[in-house]
Each structure stands twice: as structure tokens, then as C-alpha cells.
């Protein structure tokens, strides 16, 4: 039975109980507990079921490497699946649920997989489920999917109510890890004068040293830790954060960290630009590979120690320690010191006479050298272990009753950050571990090492070396940022000497197949020794193939526990050295990262900016239906009470055609181009010749990209001798401004031209319709008569005492003006106009322009259309030697026969479905129906009382009067006649009125 002891526990507050439930049962823990320690304190050994065989599993570790103890935490909108019990602080009222079991944790039908395990060898699903063919979709895959997955998915309508945010920081030195190495590095860098941020993933400073009985400067580690923290807190150039894990290393020293602030947002994502990062992330203890090593109650020796010292929780009353190094003995000693029984220490080493083993023996602990575990006896709880010779095949020599097993397989440096960004690892035979290879570090923008390994993350195990390497790293980090101040002395430390460890990759050495088939490498994914062997046998020998074929290391712990043992198994089977086998690449994040944390504040209303015109509130008041255009919100149409969108569009169109309407045209781009070379520049940007526009006049212009394709259009006005105002489409404002700047800055930098995007300076209102002029004249202040301001002219003055520019241009085919007023004053004019004019939206604008046969960028064009296709040759200056796109348009395919703009009318006036294709005879070599044209826009025209459409048709303009067939997906057919694209006022009398 795991229980809470009567005394001890550095992290817990016995005076403050915390209540929670586990699978509905009411339990109590203490303030300071992790969920894991609280469960153990309550004797909860089985906390989940494994992925494939649904074997009962218990808590193995005490940190982020925990593979088994994943729980569903919380309820409703705050439900979180797969929460790691070992790193989740216990909170009052927490509701915990075990996962991947049905109907209950104790009895799980999935366990049948375990019984069938021999028929479910690694990769079996690649070899079967193929016949009968249709069964795959109807039976097999649904079964596989149901079986897979760990935690329950949150309900479909879940809405996370919590806050998340980001924090950007630029520092000289980031120290990842607040153990004694991290503290020493921070001290060195901080004293040297560098700006330092020190982050520790747990709620405690000092890391393992405190539970490992290390003494620093003659005192217990804990006391030095307290002093170090105090000194760091006093430094103005140093910051410390607990509960903050550095999870990713990216290019140019950009580091990612997650903080669980308390109180504050649920999680905070730190984006840290660090000159250097000290990797003081410590090391992870390895399990040992013996039969039954996955049984609940088998734990890492270090985890047993942590639970004992921090939380006063014992994993059992009688704990057998199995080890291959001296460090493991610390756990045995600690257990006995806590008054618990350690019936046996199973040590794989033939010789174990180091100080720690000696001490253990002195305490009366029986030590069995050269031994191994042949099996763990289990009946719903561990009842004992069978002990055998490490050298043999596993025939049991004795049976030792116990209810818990602590395993000490040696330590693997936590080198993940080193690997995230290109750093290489080297296999170190001496420590039997992958260590950072100083020859191939992850580099920053300067080509130098961006990450400096320190302490046990660099493969050091002795406190003295740990502190020394940490000091060096801190000094080096500060120096890289030109801080050379006195970093002080590295402190002294002493701890029990340790005899050499033995790298034991399987127990016993020559375990037979029966044992190997019960020896687990990856606990969560149920990968066993025999699985890796079979993978190798089938040729999946490259480490990546083995990983993917067996799924070893692909569980939620990302191989933190299983990786090295797996590699060792692979090397053993393939007969190549571990160094030759190599390791798979560690990828960010080091620990799983919440999606909402990545999104940060950008959720809901802040997901993306909404751009509002100065008239936004007025549109809202008018009940506009919005259309997102880029990030702008534009009124699509203004439906009145009881009106459908169609009704409203009809009403708005007729109002413009018969009276007058107003449109918010603010979003159209407005770019000033000025300078001695502006004329020459614009003649290159546009296909036409803006240079020849007279002052006071406007002209329609086209802009192509270098490929020849039409990318934007708009009216250009000549403001002065060397000044032009270029209007772009709504989407074009930023794009075309950038386009102009690009050519000016990178190609024609010697041309004397300035460009300024003044789009948002103005509120622009289009006033369109036969009554437009006299409405405007009623505003007073300007003579807008036909004589004073003819079509395609502009003027400036004051309307209602508001300074404005008035452009006599039209996108509707009606008598029309566009009024540009300072954005802050456009409202006054709109309000006045709205008294007598009908506001209309973008959909109405589309109908109006289509009736007139005007093209719309994005409808008639799609990035593959050239002006010539649209009958816009008149807007291209043929004689001009050059403009952007001219050469592109000279290419074979551009000059040849193409689909060109026409109008399309159905005999019965029906509206052609947009995107419809006109079919031609027969099929192409791929059996696809041939086509000869398509509909680019189609609308119901209230003006003509029928459907109209614009389209691109093969040699269209030469085929007036021909009828095309538009085949629909549902098999029906539309027929339409090719006509002129101008449906309304072809002579343009209304336009010029």
C-alpha cells in the first residue's frame, strides 16, 4: 500500500487539506501535493490503462517524463484530457478521471487485447484488415479508431472561459532550469552584469540536490539554494520565474517557455530572444528492462525518493530496489530512514562496495550483487519479485515478497533543447548516455553556439562538476553579451562518492523470449523488447523506421523514458553500437503545449483585427449586413425590416438607377505619387500612360504583375505638375503601395519619386444616380455643374464647410461623384446625404457594375487573366516600349487564342450559376469534358428584370449570337447566348449626364 507518512515532506502543508475526487470517489490530499502524490497518498496505485493492451498502469515518475498517470481533469468548459498527474498541482475540488478504460478502471474489457497480445505483434495492422476489402471502411478502421486515443474528447460545444496571453522578452542570458546548476549559472551571469532570466518548471528551486543529500559550502543543499535565490532576487538585472518551463529552442536564439502563473491567466507563453541560453535542464532517470517492469507499484527510484522527501508519501511498505548504480541506494537508504522496509537491493553489478552500498549494508539492508529481476508477481497488486542471476536467462533463485519496486537504471541528460534547433549529440560510453556534442551546437544568427549546456544536462553527475560547468556556462553566456564583470567563485560541494555504474539494457542479460515478451520499453504505447526485435528482424533497422514501426517514443512523453532503452535494444539486436544506431530527433515542445496558449489573446473578438471605416457606426445603426473584405467590414446590403437580402438589393439598385444612392467607398486605396520622375514611374506601373493625364482630370488605369496578369485597377487623378493620386481596389491599398515601394526601392532607386499611402486619411462616399448632382448642389459650397466638373474630372473645395475632393467618376454607369473628406468629418456629409439618398452596399455595387459591363478584380480576374482577355486593350499603351507585365504578355501562350470577356443571356432570363462552365465537344485525353468558357459573375438585374452574366469565352467577342451550353453538376443544363458585356446604357448617356 502506498500511504502518507506521519512526518516529513518538504513541499506539503499538513494544516491545509485539499479535497478532490478520483473516478467519483471523494479523496483528500494536502496543499503542496501534486495530483500524483495525492493519489499515492490515498493508496491509488492503478491510475490508468495502457494504449494497446489496456494493462493497468501506475505512477512511474515524478516529473514531465511520466508516461502512465494521464488523467482527465475538470468538468464542462474547463475539462482537460491527458493532464499529467506528476506535474499538475492539486487544487481544491478537482475532479479527476482515469482514461482509456471501459467500463471502469478496475475492470476494463480492452484488457482482452493483452490476452491476445501474441496475435497482435508490432505492426500487425499493416499486415491484415485488408480482406474482405469493404470491411476496412465498415468494420476494421472504426474498431481501430475506437480502441485508440487516450483521453476523452471535450464536448463539441465546449467554450474555454479562461484567459491566455503572451510575453515577449529580450535578454542576454536565459537559464532553463532552477536546480543547483541553473542557480549557479544565473549567479555567475548575473554577477557579471548580464540581464538574466531564470526559469524553473516546478514550484521549487534547487531541483534534485536537496533530495539527494548533497552538501554545498558545507551546508545541506537546501540552505545554499535559499542563499542563492536570495542573492538572485536582490539583483536588479536578474528575474526569476517558478512554474515556468522552457519548452522550445528555435533559430537565432528564440526560445519558447510556458508559465502557469498563480494567480493570473491560465497559461502565459513566453517568447524570449536570448543572446545565450544556459541549458540546466537536469537529467531523467531510466527504467530498467525486466519482465513485469510495467506493473503498478514499479517506480523510478528517483520518483520514490521525491515522493518520500517532498510529499512524505511512501510507494509501499516493503520496497525492493533494483539498480545498476550507487545512486539508486539513496532511495533504499531514504526508505529505511523513513522507517519503511527494504527487504532487498537487487544490484546487477557483480561488485557493489561503494560508500552508498556500504552505508546501506550498515543499515541492515540486504544487498544481492550480480542479480536481476526475473519477474514481478502481481495479483491486483505487487506481491513480490523473483530474483535471478543477471548473467543468466532468468531462472529464479529466490522469491522476495514486497509490494513495491524501485528501479534505478541510470540517468539520461535532458538534452531536448539542444536538439530542437540542430544541435548534435554524441554517445558517451563512460556515462552510457547521449551528451551534447560541443563540436556541433545549435547556432544562432552569429554562427556561434546559442545554447550552453550545464550540469547534469551536460552529462555531469557529481555536484562539484555540475556546479563548475554551470559556473562556466553562466560566465560564457554573460561574456557573449559583453558582460565581463566579476562572476564570483564557483562554490564547493561534497556528496558520497559513487562507484562506477553499469549500463544494463536488459534484465537478465540473456532473458529468454518469455521474459522479453513481458519487458516493456514504452509504457504508454506498450512497446516491448520483443517488438523492437521483431521490427529489426523485418528490416526496420534504421532508428526512425524502428520508432515508426513500433511507435516507441511516440507517446505523450515523447520517449523521455523509453528512448535510450529502445535504442539499446535496437543496437543489441542489430549488433551495431548505440553510437551507430543514433537517436531520433527531439522536436519541440519539451512538454505538451496547450493550443489556446499558442493562440494567446487572439481568440474570439481579438482573433483578428476588424478594420472599421469612419462610417462604421452609421452602417451598424442602419442594420447593414456585413461582408468581410480582407480585414475590413463593408456593408453588403442594408435590409429593412421584413426585407430579404434579394429584396434589399433590388430596392437599392433601382434607387440608384432612378434617384440617387450613397456608398461608403472609404476602403478603396488612395496612394499619392509625387516627384520629378513620378510620370515615368507611373508609366511603368500602369499599362497606360498616367503621365499624359492633364491636371484636374482622372483616368482609369490597370496594373499588372511582371508575369503579365492583371492584379489591380482604379482611377488615377493628376493633382499637380508632378503629383498623382492613385486609387486602388480595397484589397489593393496595401498590396499596390508595397508593389510601388518595391520597384522604387529595389529596381529604380535612382528615380526621384515619393509614394505615400493616404487611404485612411479620407472617408470616401460615392453618390450615384440621376439625382446625384442636384442633391450635392443642395449641400452647398461647390459648383458641381456639368460644365464646372465634367465626367472624369476632379476638383476640390468645401461642401457643408468640410474640405473635400470631388471626383466625377462612376462605377455604376450612372451620373456619379465620389467625395473624399477627412475621415473625421466624412460622417457629417454622409448624415446629410442619407436624408435624401438610399445607402447601398457592396452587393448592390456589384450588380450595378455588372449591368454596365465593368469588370471586378477578383471576379473577372483570378490571377490568370491578362487585360487583353477583358477587352481592355484600350487601357494599354501599345506604343510604350515597356511597362511591368509587357514582356510577360508577349509569351507564346499569352499572345495566342484565349478566353475573352463577353456578356451571357439565358433565353428565359434565368440567372446562370456562377462558375458554370460552357462545355465543348468531346473529352480530353484524360477523359475530362472539354470546355470553352466560364461564367465569372452572374446576377439578377433589377434594372433589366432578368438574369445577366459576364463570362470568359474562347474567342468570345468573335462569336456574338452563338449559344453555349452550361452543364451543371446535377446534370441539368443552362443555355445562354453570347452578347455584349454592356447590358445597361451602352451609349453612356446617363454616365455623361
Amino acid at each position: 500500500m502506498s500511504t502518507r507518512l506521519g512526518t516529513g515532506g518538504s513541499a506539503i502543508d499538513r494544516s491545509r487539506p485539499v479535497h478532490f475526487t478520483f473516478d467519483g470517489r471523494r479523496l483528500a490530499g494536502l496543499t503542496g501535493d501534486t495530483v500524483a502524490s495525492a493519489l499515492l497518498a490515498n493508496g491509488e496505485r492503478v491510475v490508468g490503462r495502457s494504449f494497446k493492451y489496456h494493462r493497468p498502469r501506475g505512477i512511474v515518475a515524478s516529473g514531465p517524463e511520466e508516461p502512465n498517470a494521464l488523467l482527465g481533469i475538470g468538468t464542462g468548459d474547463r475539462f482537460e484530457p491527458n493532464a499529467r498527474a506528476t506535474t499538475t498541482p492539486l487544487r481544491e475540488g478537482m475532479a479527476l478521471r482515469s482514461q482509456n478504460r471501459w467500463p471502469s478502471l478496475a475492470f476494463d474489457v480492452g484488457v482482452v487485447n493483452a490476452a491476445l497480445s501474441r496475435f497482435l505483434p508490432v505492426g500487425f495492422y499493416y499486415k491484415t484488415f485488408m480482406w474482405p476489402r469493404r470491411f476496412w471502411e465498415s468494420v476494421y478502421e472504426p474498431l481501430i479508431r475506437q480502441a485508440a486515443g487516450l483521453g476523452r474528447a471535450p464536448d463539441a460545444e465546449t467554450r474555454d472561459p479562461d484567459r491566455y496571453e503572451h510575453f515577449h522578452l529580450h535578454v542576454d542570458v536565459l537559464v532553463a532550469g532552477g536546480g543547483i546548476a541553473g542557480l549557479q549559472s544565473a549567479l555567475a551571469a548575473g554577477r557579471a552584469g548580464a540581464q538574466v532570466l531564470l526559469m524553473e518548471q516546478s514550484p521549487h528551486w534547487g531541483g534534485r540536490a536537496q533530495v539527494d543529500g548533497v552538501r554545498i559550502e558545507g551546508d545541506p543543499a537546501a540552505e545554499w539554494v535559499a542563499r542563492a535565490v536570495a542573492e538572485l532576487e536582490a539583483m536588479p538585472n536578474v528575474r526569476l520565474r517558478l512554474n515556468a518551463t522552457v519548452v522550445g529552442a528555435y533559430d537565432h536564439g528564440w526560445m519558447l517557455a510556458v508559465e502557469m502563473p498563480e494567480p493570473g491567466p491560465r497559461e502565459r507563453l513566453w517568447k524570449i530572444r536570448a543572446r545565450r541560453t544556459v541549458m540546466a535542464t537536469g537529467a531523467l532517470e531510466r527504467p530498467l528492462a525486466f519482465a513485469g517492469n510495467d506493473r503498478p507499484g514499479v517506480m523510478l527510484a528517483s520518483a520514490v525518493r521525491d515522493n518520500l522527501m517532498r510529499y512524505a508519501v511512501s510507494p509501499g511498505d516493503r520496497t525492493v530496489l533494483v539498480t545498476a548504480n550507487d545512486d539508486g541506494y539513496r532511495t533504499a537508504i531514504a526508505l529505511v530512514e523513513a522507517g519503511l522496509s527494504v527487504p532487498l537491493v537487487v544490484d546487477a553489478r557483480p561488485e557493489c562496495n561503494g560508500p552508498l552500498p556500504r552505508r546501506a549494508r550498515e543499515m541492515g539492508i540486504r544487498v544481492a550483487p550480480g542479480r536481476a529481476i526475473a519477474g514481478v508477481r502481481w495479483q491486483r497488486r505487487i506481491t513480490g519479485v523473483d530474483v535471478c542471476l543477471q548473467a543468466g536467462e532468468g531462472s529464479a533463485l529466490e522469491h522476495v515478497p514486497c509490494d513495491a519496486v524501485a528501479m534505478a537504471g541510470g540517468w539520461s541528460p535532458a538534452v531536448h533543447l539542444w536538439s530542437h534547433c540542430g544541435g548534435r549529440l554524441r554517445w558517451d560510453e563512460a556515462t552510457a548516455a547521449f551528451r551534447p556534442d560541443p563540436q556541433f551546437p545549435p547556432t544562432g544568427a552569429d554562427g556561434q553556439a546559442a545554447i550552453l549546456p550545464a550540469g547534469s544536462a551536460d552529462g555531469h553527475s557529481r555536484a562539484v562538476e555540475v556546479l563548475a560547468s554551470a559556473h562556466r556556462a553562466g560566465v560564457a553566456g554573460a561574456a557573449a553579451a559583453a558582460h565581463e564583470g566579476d562572476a564570483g567563485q564557483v562554490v564547493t560541494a561534497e556528496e558520497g562518492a559513487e562507484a562506477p555504474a553499469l549500463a544494463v539494457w536488459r534484465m537478465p542479460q540473456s532473458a529468454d523470449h518469455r521474459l522479453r515478451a513481458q519487458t516493456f520499453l514504452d509504457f504508454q504505447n506498450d512497446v516491448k523488447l520483443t517488438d523492437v526485435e521483431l521490427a529489426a528482424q523485418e528490416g526496420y533497422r534504421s532508428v526512425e523506421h524502428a520508432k515508426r514501426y513500433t511507435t516507441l517514443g511516440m507517446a505523450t512523453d515523447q520517449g523521455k523514458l523509453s528512448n535510450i532503452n529502445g535504442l539499446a535494444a535496437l543496437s543489441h539486436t542489430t549488433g551495431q553500437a548505440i553510437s551507430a544506431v543514433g537517436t531520433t530527433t527531439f522536436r519541440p515542445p519539451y512538454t505538451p503545449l496547450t493550443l489556446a496558449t499558442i493562440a494567446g489573446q487572439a481568440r474570439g473578438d481579438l482573433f483578428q483585427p476588424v478594420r472599421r471605416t469612419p462610417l462604421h457606426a452609421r452602417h451598424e445603426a442602419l442594420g447593414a449586413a456585413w461582408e468581410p473584405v480582407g480585414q475590413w467590414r463593408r456593408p453588403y446590403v442594408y435590409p429593412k425590416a421584413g426585407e430579404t437580402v434579394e429584396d434589399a438589393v433590388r430596392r437599392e439598385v433601382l434607387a440608384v438607377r432612378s434617384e440617387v444612392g450613397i456608398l461608403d467607398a472609404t476602403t478603396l486605396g488612395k496612394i499619392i505619387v509625387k516627384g520629378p520622375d513620378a510620370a515615368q514611374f507611373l508609366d511603368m506601373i500602369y499599362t497606360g500612360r498616367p503621365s499624359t493625364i492633364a491636371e484636374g482630370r482622372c483616368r482609369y488605369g490597370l496594373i499588372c504583375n511582371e508575369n503579365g496578369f492583371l492584379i489591380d485597377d482604379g482611377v488615377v487623378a493628376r493633382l499637380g505638375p508632378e503629383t498623382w493620386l492613385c486609387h486602388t481596389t480595397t484589397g489593393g491599398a496595401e498590396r499596390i503601395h508595397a508593389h510601388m515601394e518595391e520597384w522604387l526601392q529595389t529596381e529604380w532607386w535612382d528615380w526621384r519619386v515619393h509614394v505615400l499611402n493616404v487611404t485612411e486619411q479620407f472617408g470616401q462616399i460615392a453618390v450615384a444616380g440621376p439625382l446625384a448632382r442636384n442633391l450635392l448642389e443642395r449641400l452647398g459650397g461647390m459648383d458641381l455643374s456639368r460644365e464646372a466638373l465634367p465626367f472624369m474630372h476632379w476638383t476640390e473645395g468645401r461642401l457643408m464647410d468640410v474640405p473635400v475632393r470631388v471626383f466625377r467618376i462612376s462605377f455604376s454607369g450612372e451620373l456619379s461623384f465620389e467625395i473624399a473628406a477627412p475621415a473625421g468629418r466624412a460622417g457629417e456629409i454622409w448624415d446629410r446625404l442619407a436624408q435624401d439618398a438610399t445607402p447601398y452596399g457592396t452587393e448592390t455595387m456589384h450588380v450595378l457594375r455588372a449591368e454596365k459591363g465593368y469588370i471586378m478584380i477578383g471576379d473577372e480576374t483570378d490571377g490568370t487573366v491578362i487585360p487583353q482577355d477583358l477587352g481592355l486593350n484600350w487601357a494599354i499603351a501599345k506604343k510604350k516600349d515597356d511597362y511591368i507585365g509587357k514582356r510577360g504578355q508577349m509569351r507564346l501562350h499569352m499572345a495566342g487564342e484565349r478566353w475573352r470577356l463577353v456578356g451571357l443571356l439565358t433565353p428565359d432570363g434565368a440567372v446562370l450559376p456562377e462558375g458554370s462552365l460552357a462545355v465543348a465537344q468531346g473529352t480530353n485525353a484524360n477523359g475530362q469534358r472539354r470546355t470553352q468558357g466560364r461564367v465569372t459573375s452572374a446576377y439578377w438585374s433589377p434594372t433589366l428584370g432578368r438574369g445577366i452574366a459576364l463570362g470568359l469565352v474562347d474567342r468570345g467577342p468573335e462569336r456574338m449570337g452563338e449559344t453555349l451550353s452550361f452543364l451543371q453538376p446535377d446534370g441539368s443544363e443552362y443555355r445562354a447566348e453570347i452578347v455584349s458585356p454592356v447590358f445597361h446604357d451602352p451609349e453612356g448617356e446617363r454616365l455623361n449626364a
Partner: protein
Amino acid sequence: MPEYPLEGRRFDGLVRLESAEPRGMIALRGTPEELSSALEESVGLAWPATGEAAWTGEVGALWMAPDELLLLVPQGQAQDLVERLGRSLADRHHLVADVSDMRTLLRMSGSGCRDVLAKVTPADVSPAGLSIGRVRRSRVGQVAAAIWLRDGETAEIACFRSVAHYVFDLLADAAHPEARVDYWTPQGADAQA
């Protein structure tokens, strides 16, 4: 009377957020070689150093780019200054325009300014990175903005008019009373000294 997007909006949290009082704004493009003397005589300001702002009272010249300044003047004085500059620069290659309505100015005040800014911009807002007098053009959330400090506890932010509400809402959310970071404050103040 002109309308301003953030008129009347105010938020109190880790910092106080409000619309700065309206000011005239002028975009001036051209090289210092061409324009600095004219700037001197019509505004009384020397061409600011790269990435800095030059102030005389409420009149400021903010460095936007090697060939671009943003001039801040009291409300209503922009048009007049544009014309004066236009005249004195007539023979110089330049571009000057009244852009008073194009951008919106927000003011953020309180000891939490740097912490709140750090949540929304990738720029270095440490006392070293964003010193008083410096003008930093960068991102605020997903939009472009210019940030400068008037003093240790007052920041001004200029963004385009159309996104004024987005920027305000984003900063207000970042300044949520329960979202303290205490990175640059209170210690941050000492670090400056």
C-alpha cells in the same frame, strides 16, 4: 466637429488606457539633406536622429524612416503648417501631406506600461530597448503601430484609424487586472535607475 474613433473610451487595469488628445499629424517625405533646414525654420526642430523623436513643447518630429518623418502639432494647425512647408520646400524633392485623420493616438499610463507592451509587441521594450525619446515602429498584436514613451510611466501608441478599436481592446485585455507579470515593474523601475 471632427470625430475620433476612441472618443470617450477609457480602461483602468494594470495601466490606464485612453485616447490621447487629438493632434494634427503631417507626413513628411524626403531626405534630411533636402529638408532639414526647412524643417528647422518652419517648426523649429532639428531632424531627429535615426529612430528618435524630437520635441519642442507639444510639437514633435518622429523618425519613421530614413526619408520620412511624422510631425505632431496641436490640433487644427496641420493644414497651415503643410502649406508653409509646401512653400518653403517648393524647389526641393519632397512630399508633405496632412494625415491628421489617418492615425489614432492612444495613451497608456502607469508603472505597468512596459509589462503590458511586452504582451503585444515583439519589440524590445526593456528600459534599454525602449528608452524615453525613442520611437519604435513594430507590431501591436497583428497590426502595425509606432510606440514611444513620453516619460517613465507614459507611453503613446499611434496606429491606423481603422484598427483603433482593435488596438484598444487588445491592450485592455493585456492590462487585465489579474494578469500581472511584474517583470519590468516594480523592479523594472529600479533597473532603470
